[in-house]
């Protein structure tokens, strides 16, 4: 199973799980904008919960004031204090989430696009080398030249051609790995975005939920945001330490170490590689 397949399976399996909660989960090819949008979406969901709690608390204060005017002032202070605490806690939780997103993902936002551009450049180089390889193969034929020197030339030309073939193959493979690295980034962004969207969906449910206690829904929303932040860290760690990422690093190392003709320096003439 190739790294690409693993990545796609990882992304799709996660996506299918997430789609059970959010039918709008879309293609796994995402970028950082998807994470940013999901973060904003989660923040808006939490804000809606807070707004709902604020409305509830103000209605409660109004009702208490109507029934117990003498309590209006103190109730007003208590509710205001509860509002400030809930708002502050929610802002803190959302702030931590945004901080995690900004610190761990935002710096890498241009990476997948850049990697894909570089993949295109390297593929063009590989195509160029394939053309050079065709020329080198033609040069293996030295016509009617005969003798030991001609044989030495043929040996050299053969070695150079095989080296060029390996050079072209490694170049093309390196382009593939650049593409896989880009895909891994996109898959990681996708996983994070979908995780945040799932958290936002759970928070949205709170708006219509139990409102028996003042700011209880906001407290649950804050807990959901904190869980989303933790989950984001776990998703990232799993992505960076998972099999696809390890395969990426290992594959890049193997590209050089696994070379048969080009071990180290370019072979000189027809000599065996050093």
């Amino acid at each position, binding site marked *: 199973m190739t790294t690409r397949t693993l990545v796609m399976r990882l992304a799709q399996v996660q996506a299918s799980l997430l789609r059970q909660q959010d039918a709008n989960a879309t293609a796994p090819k995402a970028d950082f904008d998807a994470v940013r949008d999901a973060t904003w979406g989660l923040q808006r969901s939490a804000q809606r919960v807070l707004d709902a709690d604020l409305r509830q608390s103000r209605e409660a204060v109004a009702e208490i004031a109507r029934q117990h005017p003498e309590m209006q002032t103190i109730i007003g202070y208590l509710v205001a204090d509860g509002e400030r605490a809930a708002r502050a806690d929610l802002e803190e939780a959302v702030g931590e989430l945004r901080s995690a997103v900004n610190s761990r993902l935002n710096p890498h936002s241009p990476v997948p696009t*850049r990697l894909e551009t570089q993949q295109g450049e390297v593929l063009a180089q590989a195509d160029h080398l394939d053309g050079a390889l065709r020329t080198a193969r033609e040069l293996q034929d030295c016509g009617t*030249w005969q003798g030991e020197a001609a044989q030495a030339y043929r040996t050299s030309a053969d070695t150079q051609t095989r080296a060029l073939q390996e050079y072209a193959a490694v170049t093309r493979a390196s382009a593939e790995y650049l593409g896989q690295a880009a895909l891994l980034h996109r898959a990681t962004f996708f996983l994070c975005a979908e995780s945040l969207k799932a958290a936002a969906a759970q928070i949205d449910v709170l708006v219509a939920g139990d409102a028996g206690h003042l700011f209880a829904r906001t407290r649950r929303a804050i807990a959901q945001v904190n869980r989303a932040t933790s989950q984001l860290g776990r998703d990232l760690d799993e992505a960076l330490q998972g099999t696809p990422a390890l395969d990426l690093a290992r594959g890049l190392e193997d*590209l050089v170490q696994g070379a048969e003709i080009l071990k180290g320096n*370019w072979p*000189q*003439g027809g000599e065996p590689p050093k």
Partner: protein
Amino acid sequence: MSSDEELWDQLAFRVTRSQVGGVRAEDDDLLAAADLLEASINPHRGAQAGMAGGGSPGVMPPMMMGGAGGAAGGAAASAGGLGAGGRLADPAAGPLSVPASAPAAAGVPGDATALPRQSGGAGGGAGASGISGGAEPAPLASGGGPGVEPAAAAEVAPPVEQASEVAGLAMVAGETAALGRAVAPASEPLDGFEADPTQLHGLGERWSGLAEQVAGLSRHPEAGMGLFDDAQQAQHSLSQQLDSWRTGAVDEFEAMAERLHVTAAQYGRVDDEGVAELRRTEGLDA
């Protein structure tokens, strides 16, 4: 130094030692020469053959023999080949005649290939206007002089001697034979070399073009692996390795081109020297 490098280095030595340019040279047959030469100057064989001319047992001047063969070569090619072009069927015809089964070198007219084994020594070759002047009579009878049927010559030639031919170089046959070199069994292919300096220069030009083609590649991008730090070092190493290979390939392809140009020049120089030597020798004989 690897064996291939040695071969490259030996090339100039071989070319110089072979004293031939352009077409092909014998250069590894020194050990085989003595035996066959001795057999070829057997004074009785010519008599046994009963050929006209009596099969002189004496040692003939090398270039005379070369001239005899060359006459045949010129006759066959009708182009005035160089003197030593004839391939003699019978070693008794003279140890100093050498066959030339390959095309003549560039600049050296006359193709001495495919001469009948019995044609050696056929004097007065038509069109033998080459350096060696093929009008000289064949000094040895067994070669089949004028009026001798080739078939008859073949019949009288001992099988064991038919199996032995004097192999050598068309262009410097006289010298080669005089040194007692270049003798090989007729059943074996000539172990020489064949080169066209123009072709080698052309190959060199194409390797230069290939070097330019690879040099036209941009540097491998130093791709940042973003989230995947573990892959960053591997990617960096790979990128450096690919760049190293690119410069190494360019350098080596240019070196290939240079070696080819040098080799072609060596072939060409020795070719010129061989022709000049023949002209000089022929001038002395005349």
